[in-house]
């Protein structure tokens, strides 16, 4: 009989061992997860570096370009034309060697790739090869930082609006599904097959070309208006079209997806039960529908935050918006590998961090999830 009753010390011992095992499990999980994510980032970034110089092919392009421009420059320089041909040839070769050294072309490709990789992993973004920021700096960090606000403004305003508007509207639709608005959203959801820049062209056509009430592109008028208020209003005026095209292109599909998702959850038995108990609709929504769908919503939100970083290359190009996407596109055209690598590594780190943190967030919002348990 006495065996059944546990002494307090025994009970606390069981608890500690349980806590210990939880700690062990979580820490083992953290280590393994961080390692795999790190390896993933390394491999991904190395592949990007390899693609960014096409396995050495881009080196050849750059070498030829350097040789061409320097030979041209020296041949056309009147002061140099009087020189002895042999001396001039030597001068050309020396200048080419100097320029190649500046571009790093004198170092073997493999060494350079590893150097790019280790610099990237330590976030030592280095100097751009050809591009400069508007302020005149060649630091990759400064070039990226200069463009970041523009991208954050455009992507942030449109994506956050999309996120909250579509969840809010989707909840409303799932409550009254089958009515006119619901059918309209379902019918319009294929419009999201069309990318934002495409709507952008139509919006430019209508509002800039025909009605001439909004600008064709750019971020502010040139010259920019003075005064904070005038400047912000001008910025807003330029923001309307690109932001709208980003929103329109995902709006209906986003609502449709959330609505379908909520509908699937609202047909669960416990929701029926709650309805039968007569709980108010608002309580049912927040406690019985939103709560179990929270992990998915959080995932979507986290991924949304990451996409802010990448910008919208083509939309930015169509609207001449001076954001990161457009900068990246220009960097590719100028063979500016440091910028391409810099942008990729930051994205890779952000993604890896988000993936890692999401596991913990799931465990926090959903008591059924345990970290590191299969």
């Amino acid at each position, binding site marked *: 009989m006495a065996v059944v009753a546990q002494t307090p010390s025994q009970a606390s011992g069981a608890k500690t061992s349980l806590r210990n095992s939880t700690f062990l499990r979580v820490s083992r999980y953290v280590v393994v997860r961080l390692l795999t994510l790190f390896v993933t980032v390394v491999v*991904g970034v190395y*592949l990007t570096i390899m693609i960014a110089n096409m396995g050495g092919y881009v080196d050849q392009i750059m070498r030829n370009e350097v040789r061409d421009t320097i030979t041209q420059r020296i041949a056309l320089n009147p002061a140099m034309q009087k020189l002895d041909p042999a001396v001039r040839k030597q001068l050309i070769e020396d200048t080419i060697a100097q320029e190649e050294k500046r571009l790093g072309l004198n170092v073997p490709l493999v060494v350079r790739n590893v150097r790019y990789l280790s610099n990237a992993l330590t976030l030592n973004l280095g100097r751009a090869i050809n591009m400069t920021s508007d302020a005149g700096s060649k630091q990759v960090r400064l070039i990226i930082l200069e463009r970041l606000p523009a991208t954050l403004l455009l992507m942030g305003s449109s994506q956050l609006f999309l996120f909250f508007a579509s969840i809010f509207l989707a909840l409303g639709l799932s409550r009254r599904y089958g009515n006119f608005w619901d059918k309209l959203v379902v019918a319009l*959801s294929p419009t999201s097959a069309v990318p934002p820049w495409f709507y952008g062209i139509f919006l430019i*056509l209508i509002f800039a*070309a025909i009605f001439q009430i909004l600008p064709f592109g750019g971020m502010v008028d040139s010259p920019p208006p003075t005064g904070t208020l005038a400047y912000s209003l001008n910025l807003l005026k330029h923001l309307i079209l690109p932001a709208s095209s980003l929103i329109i292109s995902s709006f209906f599909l986003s609502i449709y997806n959330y609505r379908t998702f909520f509908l*699937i959850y609202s047909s669960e038995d416990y929701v029926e039960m709650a309805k039968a108990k007569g709980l108010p609709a608002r309580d049912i929504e927040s406690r019985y529908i939103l709560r179990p769908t929270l992990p998915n919503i959080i995932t979507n939100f986290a991924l949304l935050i990451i996409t802010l970083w990448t910008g919208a290359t083509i939309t930015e*190009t169509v609207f001449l918006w001076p954001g990161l996407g457009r900068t990246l596109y220009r960097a590719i055209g100028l063979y500016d590998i440091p910028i391409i690598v810099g942008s990729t590594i930051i994205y890779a780190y952000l*993604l890896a961090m988000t993936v890692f943190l999401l596991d913990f967030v799931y465990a926090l919002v959903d008591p059924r999830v345990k970290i590191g348990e299969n």
Partner: protein
Amino acid sequence: MKSSLQNLLKYPSAVLGMLVVLLLVATAIFAMIKIPYAEAIRLWRGGEDVWYQNPKFAPPAWINNFSSKKYAESFSVRTTDGSLEKTVTPGKEGTASISINYPLDFQYDYYPQEMILYVTSKYQTKQPFLSAELLTPDGRKIRITNASLGEKLTYRFSQDQKLMTRLRTEDVFPALFSDPKTGQPLKGQYQLQISGTTFEPDSDIDVEFVFHGQVYGLAGTDQSRRDLVVPLLWGAPVALAFGLIASLGTLVLTMVIAAIGTWYGGWLDELIQRITEVNLVLPFLSILIMIGTFYSRSIWVILGATILLSIFTGAIKGYRSIFMQVKESMYIEAAQAYGASSPRIIFFYLIPRMIPLLIPGLVSSVPAFVFLEASLAVLGLGDPVLPTWGKIIQDAQANGALYRGYYYWILEPAVLLMITGLGFAMLGFALDRVFNPRLRDV
């Protein structure tokens, strides 16, 4: 399958989508028969020598139906094919006089961009002679030019200094086609009279009269005078081929790889999952832009890269989880029991189960790839040889079509792209609802 089709026909959007897809396929076949590949490339890559008969930046001719003021339509006529009538009257000692009359019905409110005479002549030693006059509806006779001909002569009305002096203006066409009293365009029957004289028995003159109006043909022209009908028609097979091959290739490869990974499990499965994670880190659009910039802009290279990068995405995880369930089914166990080999199980037992899931995905992912091609073209990375809808938009953007009011130039390819995208998307949505029972009721 039959009941699925019946189910599908209940959705109006599916019917509309199917119609669009069928229409596209029909257009694509028509384009390939009407303008064979080599001819399409020759036309699309052709310069002034191919397209000299067309005006630049001309909207399509049907805009006249929507405008109260009429734009001049472009045309060209020549004596070699009889569209321009030539009468030869033999004279003394081997001479001959040639007369060419063209009745020009001018019922427009805008003046033409340009009028050109391309004259070719045959002779041994004595050069033929040619003169041209324009007879206006109110009976005036305007002398255009006199010239003794070499083998080839190109006469542009707007460039003739003498004609400008005679008309006392820099702008020839308003002077030629206006009522001198009001200064307004004078509508009516004009007559272009060309008379030539040859001085040798075998000597001959041939004339081509090219009239560059403001509007041209069914689709208009671009900055290189190209008739937009060619790329608009040929855009359909290119878009369909790119969209369907990319979508089919991606889905089938994804499915096969997911099935193999799930079936064999172990390190192979682990490897596939790791590759998928690495692929998530890779910047998709940037890599395509890099390949386009550094390596090749060929649509087939881009297509291959697109498929490779699209295999290892989130979709592979979705398929994997479904295969995991299917793998445990009784019929797989039965197949193993009677000694089916692993490849047999993968290709004849696992994958066929997924085909219903494949079909909606296949159709719905087509627009993304069609627009991807257009997006790359808009960034200036379109195929250098093939005429595509994206290339038209890029040309239009590069020439400031929206700023300068050439709306037709962007709208035509854009509307076609939009219809294609929406058609496939609507069909895909409906298919998803038919084949995906979880969605059927909602």
